[in-house]
């Protein structure tokens, strides 16, 4: 197992190098000039040229690339053009917010999707199954920003139940009498809408994968063995069918993580959630190259490591897999 993980980490390093290179090329191809944003038009041409030289942007592209690689290996991502702060600092300020929102929503949708998929397969063709399957199909195909806007309009604007943007309310956090609990509740309160949006977008695919996997498992001979042994239907479903059925679902969780990240960026943007996804969208639109590059890289790393974790988990759940 340890050997396998080390081998996979080696692969990850290679893939990261490729991603870093692709990012470098992409950003050089992108339209828009970073200097025009950074440099005050009132500066003289010499001063502007000085600044460009300081940033190293006057050097040949090959040299820029080597410098870029060197900085990357050293963990130096440069300064954000927009904030004027080290990129690392900007990212570290935003990352926990994204992890909070995203992992909660993903764990929730995986758990709910898998258990509803299990039930749908068990009640195949009956009302519960039809209801769940149709719900999964419909929500899975919804356009996320539209859904988010509908939520904002209904729950935030019309009903006024929930905050429509941000992560905290100033009046709670500035009030010296409010304790940790009040602050946590306030964050939770702000989390409801974006989390439900993400949940609705994602539980459907887990439900559908689990349902079809479960249906296949229920046709296996060991299910007949279990029934012949006199086990209750509940024990058959939970101890024999489900542990086999969720193996393919684990894989699909890992794969879908990469795709759900753009949904995450959209959700953060619509709800003004101060996370890394929203920061990425802003950075791209402001030609903030260093920040955008680092955010892309971070997302790539998260996806790569998540897939590694999924593979290790797979070996844990399926005794037939040994590395």
């Amino acid at each position, binding site marked *: 197992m340890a050997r396998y993980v080390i081998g996979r980490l080696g692969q990850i390093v290679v893939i990261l190098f490729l991603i870093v290179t692709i990012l470098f090329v992409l950003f050089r191809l992108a339209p828009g000039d970073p200097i025009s944003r950074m440099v005050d038009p009132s500066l003289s041409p010499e001063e502007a040229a000085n600044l460009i030289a300081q940033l190293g942007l006057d050097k040949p592209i090959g040299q820029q690339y080597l410098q870029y690689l060197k900085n990357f290996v050293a963990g130096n991502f440069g300064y954000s053009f927009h904030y004027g702060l080290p990129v690392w600092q900007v990212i570290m300020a935003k990352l926990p917010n994204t992890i909070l929102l995203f992992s909660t929503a993903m764990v929730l949708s995986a758990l709910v999707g898998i258990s509803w998929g299990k039930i749908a397969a068990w009640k195949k063709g009956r009302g519960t199954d039809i209801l769940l399957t149709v719900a999964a199909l419909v929500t899975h195909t919804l356009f996320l920003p539209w859904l988010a806007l509908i939520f904002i309009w209904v729950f935030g604007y019309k009903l006024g139940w929930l905050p429509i943007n941000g992560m905290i309310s100033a009046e709670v956090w500035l009030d010296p009498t409010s304790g940790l609990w009040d602050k946590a509740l306030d964050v939770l309160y702000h989390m409801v809408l974006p989390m439900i949006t993400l949940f609705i977008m994602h539980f459907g695919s887990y439900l559908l994968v689990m349902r079809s996997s479960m249906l296949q498992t229920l046709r296996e001979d060991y299910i007949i063995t*279990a029934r012949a042994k006199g086990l209750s239907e509940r024990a058959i479903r939970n101890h024999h069918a489900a542990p086999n059925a969720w193996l393919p679902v684990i894989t699909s969780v890992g794969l879908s993580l990469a795709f759900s990240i753009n949904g995450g960026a959209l959700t953060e943007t619509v709800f003004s959630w101060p996370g890394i996804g929203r920061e990425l969208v802003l950075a791209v639109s402001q030609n903030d190259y260093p920040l955008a590059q680092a955010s892309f890289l971070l997302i790539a790393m998260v996806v790569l490591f998540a897939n590694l974790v999924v593979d290790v988990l797979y070996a844990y759940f399926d005794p037939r897999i040994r590395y």
Partner: protein
Amino acid sequence: MALLEVHNLSIAYRTKRGLLQAVDNVSFSLEQGRSLGLVGESGCGKTTIGMALMGLLPRNGRVTGGGITLAGRDLLALTRQQWRELRWREIAMIFQAAMNALNPVQRVGEQIAEAILTHNPQMPRAQALSQVEGLYQLVGLPLERLRDYPHQYSGGMKQRAVIAMALACNPKVIVADEPTTALDVIVQDQILQETKSLQKEFNIGIIFISHDISIVAEVCHHIGIMYAGQMVETGSVAEVFSQARHPYTRALLGSFPALGGARRRLSPIAGEPPRLIGQLPGCRFCARCPVSGHSCKLEPPQWRQFSDSHFVLCDHCE
């Protein structure tokens, strides 16, 4: 009264093309400690009978007539809960191990202990596991393999584990459905010998389902030959083997190679069994039968008795 009585049993499946009469008017009985082999080609209804004995017919299958009694108890009248309690405790099944009869993500020992614990909910887990150890010794499996997963077993070991599982709750009857079909002949023979001695030791009644008449002859006291959902000949092994009467039984024996005796050409049975949907007047084997007369197609054949135990469903078998 016999331990297990199957009386005029008929089973049908609802299919898209109509009602499929998989088992038609089959009767047999099994005494304690005896074994009966059900032999026939694929689709003759032998597995369907096995599943009906376990109360495990698929959803579209239904007993349409006749009865099954086990130790005087009418199995067809059982509720689902009663079935659950009876299964494995009274009547267990040996599955074909190659067919994934074991759950791939559960340890083999646990799967056997699960059967014991289901029927003895009060029993401590450790006691169930020590019983499983006893079963492993019984079927000749090394104890250190208790905590292995099914994929770590060879085909023969899996088959032994499945047999151990069937013995777990001391059932009165065991239904063995093609238990050695996927094994090579040497392992097959070992398993058959062990099954035989275990049966004697525990005085279990066995229904042995197989397409291989030679295996059944080795293990069983009685044989029932099935064709197209019907029992066509039944008798002791000696009777059916050496005095086969039904043309199908004879054809079946002629299509298997014999180890001893004169060398002869194997004779395949030409044609296919009839489709079992709709009315089937007359004898079902008629179209493939070498001795059929005109009347066979019109009238259903009658049972003829040749000894106390030897019965044949044919009008032309003298």
